[in-house]
């Protein structure tokens, strides 16, 4: 049923090459987006828990803004609105960035900042779930604020939230498909293109679905391995403290005109 994927396309490639190129962009977006999101998320999550009111308020503001605007809207804000509100020359320069970078960069920004806000909340939950005695014992040993976070609080909080970070990994990689709305030829966009070129809708999206499922499985298994590797000898297995909150799946309105 997937034979059509190996047929020649008009540009001399095979349809499977389109799919693989789409997969490449999906993976690149998910991978780099994840690490940026993780770095920002940890910093902002810590910021949510510090004594300094200003820092805590700024971290809170970040989370509320980026978590509560739908991903699709954020995608459009970065892609369409940002160049308009920047000073003329800079805005024009951004519009001139050639594809695929012209859509990859805004998509990367959008997904990492959105996911970072979600990770920040998990990190905060993890930190707040630790007994107060941990920070007190560290302080009593003369470890200051930074050293206490670095060596006592954050390592424990991150271990605690590995299960909920697993959902965030899944979340960012599923959300990569939203990037097709700003013209990034990632996996879903390529599937769509194949479907339009061959009229084999079922095959095209069936193949994409299988790839997404396989990726999800790999991501899940890797997180399980990480969880195992980080397990503290003698301690009980960690529970999902932040609850099984899944990232909201982004749904495109049926009538949505997809930007190509």
């Amino acid at each position, binding site marked *: 049923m997937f034979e059509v994927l190996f047929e020649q396309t008009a540009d001399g490639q095979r349809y499977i090459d389109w799919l693989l190129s789409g997969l490449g962009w999906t993976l690149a977006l998910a991978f780099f987006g994840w690490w940026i999101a993780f770095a920002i998320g940890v910093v902002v999550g810590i910021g949510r828990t510090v004594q300094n009111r200003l820092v805590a308020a700024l971290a809170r503001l970040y989370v509320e803004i980026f978590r509560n605007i739908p991903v699709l809207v954020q995608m459009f804000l970065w892609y369409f609105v940002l160049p308009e509100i920047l000073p003329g020359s800079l805005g024009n320069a951004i519009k001139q960035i050639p594809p695929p970078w012209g859509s990859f960069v805004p998509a990367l920004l959008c997904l990492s900042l959105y996911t970072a806000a979600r990770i920040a909340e998990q990190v905060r939950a993890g930190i707040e779930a630790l*007994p107060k*005695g*941990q920070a*007190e*014992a*560290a*302080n*009593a*040993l*003369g*470890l*200051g604020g930074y*050293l206490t976070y670095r*060596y*006592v609080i954050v*390592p*424990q909080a991150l*271990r605690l939230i590995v299960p909920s970070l697993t959902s965030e990994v899944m979340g960012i990689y599923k959300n990569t498909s939203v990037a097709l709305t700003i013209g990034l030829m990632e996996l879903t966009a390529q599937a769509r293109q194949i479907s339009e070129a061959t009229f084999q809708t079922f095959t095209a999206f069936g193949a994409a679905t299988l790839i997404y499922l396989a990726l999800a499985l790999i991501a899940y298994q890797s997180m399980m391995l990480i969880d195992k590797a980080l397990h*503290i*000898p*003698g*301690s009980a297995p960690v529970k999902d403290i932040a609850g099984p909150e899944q990232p909201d799946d982004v749904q495109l309105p049926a009538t949505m005109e997809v930007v190509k």
Partner: protein
Amino acid sequence: MLQESAGRPAPPSSIVVVEHLVKRFGRFAALNDVNLEVARGEKIVICGPSGSGKSTLIRCINHIEKHDGGRIVIDGIELTDRMADINSVRCEVGMVFQSFNLFPHLSVVENCMLAPIKVRGLSRLDAHDRAIGLLRKVRIHDQANKYPAQLSGGQQQRVAIARALCMQPKIMLFDEPTSALDPEMVKEVLETMVELAQEGMTMVCVTHEMGFAREVADRVIFMDGGSIVEEGDPDTFFRAPRTERAKSFLSQIIH
């Protein structure tokens, strides 16, 4: 040389000076005008009913709780809001908690090495040697590579004592170190504390272990309602308390 001796005053004879200490939680005064001096090498046992402010007092001494009034001077350094002072005081003050508070993600020996390396600037090798030496002293060096969750409560508390000692503190604070332990483990921890006392460590212990108090305490302090109500040498205090409140407290813990 000359400058140094001129700039550094002789160490005060009292290592801890607490004057008119007040600590409030909201409008509730947990400590009300507490005065306490601890001489170098002195062993003090603090007892009193639950909620009388014992923990709050020793937590103020290393600034885990911030006091609202009065003065606390540790080894010549007054505790104010200056973080540098607070951290240097904390290096000289070891603390042992009722709930051990070991770092569960670090092995026993790493628990003991963390602060000496990061705060005192010891090399890993020196910190390791020191940690093993002190773990041996509390007779738990054969468990050095285990994790806290793999140890019994009594073992964990002895590790916590070793961890505090690795900073080579000038004074050790204990907040009910045996209250969370099963009865059969109380002894091993108390023995460790007695040895420490015999080596001349300055100690302030919140505990209701009267045997320990009689054996090592130079002074027993009885607190009630956020104040020091009575103090004296252990023999007199346990045999013939002067105040009614101490009498009724003692009758309760003796049964």
